[in-house]
């Protein structure tokens, strides 16, 4: 049998030693439940399974030139990232409950936490959450705990893929979730300022936002703090190569989707939710946290710490129910950031912005194609209005070999003709030119 080490002879020997038959081992399960027929196929060997899966992989089209973003990005991944994360000392371990055997994972997570803080301008970070959406939800719950309040304001320029998750999670909870409609592509100050009151736990914003627009939330941080509310900012980690950090803006909790830090898109996961905050809130933070300490010989060492917040100790009073997180993805992000380094991340971010800016100019030169928002700063995504329905145009461009962008009508009213286009450092000038030609030809 595949992946079972004991021979039939050994199994018999072991049963004889414990004086039982195989059936006796299951005699505590009422026989009416046992060994009922299951409609499952017979097993196949490695060679056949690889052929079968290669065929299925071929039924997925990955040859479209990708201008699709929406929070999930086609960035370049250096080969060395795979080399490190495919070391089985890392990937076949589990949560580092035994620190002496897990200094590798523990130090890496400590370094990851440090890198996330440096990236976002914050003071503390946890060891990871499932994804950007659950991280945003956990940040919201953390703000409710810190403030003891129950009103949350969220602007609709925050990724709708995350907002629908927050809607689901809050269904059974007594939370007053108020949405503001963005103002010309930026967080709606007028509405947000009016809504912030002394019942407000948090304002949730995103930078760059779902439309790719860049904002500075310093004024909103100040307004929130005046009323004792917190500012939660979700950010795109690659953009942190150049953009003002949430920390510099005065954010209290920073979250985001870390997929862009060296993880393949992999049809939706595994991804990485990151979370950073201020030292004064560390004991209210969800998730595992690694801390530095010393061993009995005063050697620097690392342990899981502040566990009194967690489910295995606090049970129904815990800060979160999370147990397994996305440790290997956190390692991936750390290796990616180490390979790019201080200069490389800045350059990558700048190249993304430059290429997006080039594409923007190239595409808006097409007659009938207009920017949706008035002059705005954007990072590597932008919204264009087409002379006809965006979903139709995108479908036609698929036939020409492009995943040209995302139709905003899927989540926003009155945006039938609007398309969200993303350009990463992987796209070439030539590909951008070809997209422009293809777009022009289908309009």
């Amino acid at each position, binding site marked *: 049998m595949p992946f079972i080490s004991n021979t039939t002879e050994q199994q018999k020997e072991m049963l004889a030693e414990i004086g039982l038959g195989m059936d006796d081992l299951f005699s505590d399960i009422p026989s009416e439940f046992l060994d009922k027929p299951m409609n499952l196929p*017979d097993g196949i060997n490695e060679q056949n399974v690889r052929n079968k899966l290669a065929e299925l992989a071929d039924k997925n089209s990955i040859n479209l030139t990708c201008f699709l973003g929406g929070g999930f990005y086609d960035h370049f991944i250096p080969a060395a990232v795979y*080399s490190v994360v495919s070391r089985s000392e890392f990937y076949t371990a589990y949560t580092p409950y035994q620190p002496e055997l897990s200094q590798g994972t523990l130090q890496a997570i400590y370094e990851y936490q440090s890198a996330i803080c440096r990236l976002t301008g914050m003071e503390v970070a946890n060891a990871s959450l499932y994804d950007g959406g659950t991280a945003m939800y956990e940040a919201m719950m953390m703000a409710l705990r810190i403030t003891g309040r129950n009103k949350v304001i969220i602007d609709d320029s925050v990724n709708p893929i995350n907002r629908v998750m927050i809607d689901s999670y809050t269904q059974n909870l007594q939370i007053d979730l108020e949405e503001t409609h963005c103002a010309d592509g930026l967080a709606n100050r007028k509405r947000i300022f009016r809504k912030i009151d002394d019942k407000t736990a948090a304002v949730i914003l995103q930078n760059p936002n779902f439309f790719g627009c860049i904002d500075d939330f310093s004024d909103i941080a100040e307004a929130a703090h005046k009323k004792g509310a917190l500012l939660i900012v979700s950010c795109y980690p690659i953009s942190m190569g150049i953009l003002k950090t949430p920390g510099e803006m005065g954010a209290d909790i920073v979250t985001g989707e870390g997929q862009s830090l060296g993880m393949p898109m992999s*049809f939706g996961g595994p991804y990485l939710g990151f979370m950073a905050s201020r030292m004064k809130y560390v004991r209210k933070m969800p998730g595992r946290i690694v801390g530095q300490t010393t061993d009995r010989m005063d050697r620097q060492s690392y342990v899981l710490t502040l566990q009194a917040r967690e489910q295995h100790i606090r049970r129904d009073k815990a800060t979160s*129910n999370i147990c397994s997180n996305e440790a290997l993805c956190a390692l991936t992000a750390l290796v990616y950031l180490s*390979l790019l380094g201080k200069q490389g991340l800045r350059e990558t971010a*700048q190249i993304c912005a430059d290429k997006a800016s080039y594409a923007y100019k190239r595409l808006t030169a097409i007659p009938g194609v207009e920017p949706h928002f008035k002059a705005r700063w954007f990072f590597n995504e932008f919204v264009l209005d087409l002379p006809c329905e965006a979903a139709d145009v995108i479908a036609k461009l698929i036939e020409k070999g492009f995943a040209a962008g995302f139709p905003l009508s899927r989540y926003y009213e009155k945006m039938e003709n609007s398309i969200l286009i993303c350009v990463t450092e992987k796209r070439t000038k030539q590909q951008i030119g070809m997209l422009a030609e293809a777009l022009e030809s289908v309009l």
Partner: protein
Amino acid sequence: MKLIFEKSAPDRRAVQPGPSDVPASINIKKALLREKPAELPELSELDVIRHFTELSRRNFGVDTNFYPLGSCTMKYNPKVTERIAAYPGFAHLHPLLPQLRMGGMLTQGALRVLYETDLFLREIMGMAGFTMQPLAGAHGELTGMMIMAAYHRDKGNKKTTVLIPDSAHGTNPASAAIAGYKVRTIGTTENGFMELKDVEKALDDDVAGVMLTCPNTLGLFNPHIRDICDLIHSVDGLAYYDGANLNAIVGKARPGDFGFDIVHINLHKTFATPHGGGGPGAGPVGVIEKLLDFLPVSIVVKRDDGTYALEYDRPKSIGYVAPFYGNFGIILRAYVYMLMLGKNGLKRVAENAVLNANYVKEKLKKHYKLAFDRTCKHECVFSVPESMLGKSVHAIDIAKALIDRGFHPPTVYFPTNVKEAMMIEPTETESKETLDAFVEAMIEIAEQAKAEPDMLKNAPVTTPVSRPNETAAAKHPNIASL
């Protein structure tokens, strides 16, 4: 060992992203830019590789040696699944593609993986349908509790409370609480499980349901499980199955037949996907027929023409618990594992997991205190005998002594209703030779506990660090180098 940041040298480079083939533009307003670049390390590729190779040597995985961490099912992770997950046709697939018009046809292979995994899991669990969205076991629990709440809301039931045995994993009460429920805890009797009469006593109309592992975290199968589920159903409650211990019964018996209504499965346990040093995992949730409408959006369906599509129109659904279709890369590995094992292979998994656990249990029960002396399922729970406690030897000391003998320790101090617990889960992938070596080490430690207990208090001595000071770590948290 130095931190990676301490190895940095100005202007040293690994990856060079440029030069760019478009003109540089200084289009972003200065006030929107960060003042200084993020202080990431500046290293060569070799520096990075050496650093992480050194770290990896300070780690212990299933590939290193025996890892009998109870409740975690640390079985061997087949290498072929890693290879397949890296196929570009899967790894480079953008998750938004099927949401574009015409796009669904471009992801038929991936949608079929999701669809067939759902079918296989239905068959294995006795459920009517699954969502692949939950990203780990605990996330599955929360999803399950949200489905429970949606069911009661739909029926107009006013339910406030979930029953959970004291042996449950901490995630169970935490998930119920986060979903908005109160938790009522039920004790474990000397038989090793929650008794029917105690459930009866705790039951009233406020009860929304029960959360159980079966076999439970003591490794014991509750023979009255069907009656417990029936009892819960008598107040229109729902029975939730925490699938963390599925390895004990996979291919042999189905939770749906026991009377469970909602289940989650930890694919990173029973279905052999790697634990990743703490994740990523995946926690698909299955439900019986009457709960299908509440499953998250979207669901993969097969159309009459044999193609696969995502179904979004689900008015009673709890909505989205994850951005897309779950941790696809993990689901894919589990799918490959199921294809390779087939129905007979899966059944052998449970049989050998249970055989290995009972073998270890019998071999050790003369030397350690068996929490419950009965046939166990996939794991067995011991506690430290009084004679050792008298010499101040605790579960933690035994764990650390095992490290010096080359083994990963069992789970210690869990389940919490057994004092000084040591929970051993060998899994089916280990050989008799490995189990014998482990048993021998455990016996040697028991002898040492009598003869030279102080030696145990010093363990481990073979690792890069000895026992770290956890109290100091929590008192003055240093959790980032800034």
